[in-house]
């Protein structure tokens, strides 16, 4: 049987791009885009993508009865959350007037404040934080293999995650403030940026994920 990656399809995300990038990163892997809990449980590893508003994302996960299986696989097999698929893993979000999330990683999702500036500039920073920004890896991890420190990845978001436990943070990026750009906890990894839109470094991260056994570094 070919090694399978399940991309969870709950109608909220650029699934085509994520699936294509995974296939491109490792042509030997079989990518299954699915909302079927049986298929998700059967896969060797799982990607949770997501774009748009977090309440809609969580609402669709609940409607499709996916919360249980997501919680289960996120603690059992190599698991990668992307963008809102990362934010959904936290305890709660400020978005949509306060939204309870999955609670797999203790912490909050916060909005970038207004009148945000970098220390070296007078110009007010734009929100959404949109474009290629540097990612500072905080500790070695199999998913950073072959990716240079401070590589630029593509971001597009107005909210950022703030994990309570400092060691859950795997990388930081600066946009007026230093925020967590990646989370690492056991078999779970999650990124705020879009690897599927980050050219070679993004494809390398997907390739690393496909080869990762899910163990602690």
């Amino acid at each position: 049987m070919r090694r399978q990656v399940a991309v969870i399809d709950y109608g909220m995300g650029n699934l085509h791009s994520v699936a294509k990038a995974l296939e491109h990163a490792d042509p030997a892997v079989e990518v299954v885009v699915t909302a079927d809990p049986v298929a998700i449980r059967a896969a060797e590893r799982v990607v949770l993508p997501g774009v748009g508003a977090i309440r809609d994302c969580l609402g669709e996960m609940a409607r499709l009865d996916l919360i249980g299986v997501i919680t289960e696989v996120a603690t059992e097999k190599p698991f990668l959350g992307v963008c809102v698929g990362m934010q959904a893993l936290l305890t709660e979000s400020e978005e949509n007037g306060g939204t309870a999330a999955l609670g797999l990683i203790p912490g909050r999702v916060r909005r970038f404040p207004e009148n945000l500036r970098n220390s070296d500039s007078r110009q007010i920073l734009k929100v959404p934080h949109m474009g290629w920004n540097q990612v500072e890896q905080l500790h070695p991890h199999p998913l950073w293999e072959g990716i240079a420190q401070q590589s630029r990845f593509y971001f597009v978001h107005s909210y950022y995650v703030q994990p309570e436990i400092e060691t859950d943070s795997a990388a930081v990026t600066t946009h007026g403030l230093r925020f967590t750009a990646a989370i690492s906890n056991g078999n779970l990894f999650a990124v705020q940026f879009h690897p599927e839109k980050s050219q070679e470094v993004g494809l390398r991260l997907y390739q690393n994920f496909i080869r990762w056994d899910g163990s602690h570094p």
Partner: protein
Amino acid sequence: MGRGPGSNSVGVAKRIIPCLDVDNGRVVKGVQFVDIRDAGDPVEVARRYDEQGADEITFLDITASSDNRETMVHVVEQVAGEVFIPLTVGGGIRKVEDIRRMLNAGADKVGINTAAVFNPEFVREAADRFGSQCIVVAIDAKQVSGEGEPLRWEIFTHGGRRPTGLDAVAWAEKMVAYGAGEILLTSMDRDGTKQGFDLPLTRAISDAVSVPVIASGGVGELKHLAEGVLEGHAEAVLAASIFHFGTYTIAEAKSEMAAAGIEMRL
């Protein structure tokens, strides 16, 4: 986390976005690369720009007949399967269903232009449904103030031929309030002139709105791109002909902008 904010990183890079006009699934308006097999093939042209370091790619669907719109969906699918940088599709986006199809095909953002002017609620509906991050409102503006008067620009439709009476700055603010996540600003006075962006216009809009502004219209030399950022306060610059004709590569444009002190992804 140890060091203070912004101690070594200078933040998000300014973006260079080549724009391709696509008619019935073919790139038009003369892409002239040497050693390209098929200069009309959107996949091949996009791949080339990706290799040169383009930060995003924008496709403008200029297909006249709505019967042929489906062709654009296939173009996006093919490009998104091979080029892993953000893709924006504009032209003919009038309904929620148009947006859904483009996003499902692999587009990251859609550009809404005329439809926003005739039905601003469409922008609100689109942003509610798909999120502001994928809604780019395209604004075509033209100076209407006379000599000696305070500068003023208005929104024009139909390729700059039809005035709407809408003030460009106020319109941009309204579109952001309705949920636009980005503004693609084209000066109809400068478009095609190669004289550089309308910098006062770009700056007026960039300083008025909280979301990123892409400057467009008038790029003829590389220094124009840097001006768009440094003097126009744009987050991104869009150009077509200087890249298509091979006058400059994206890589050359990036080095020039970096040399001007602009943060770029090199």
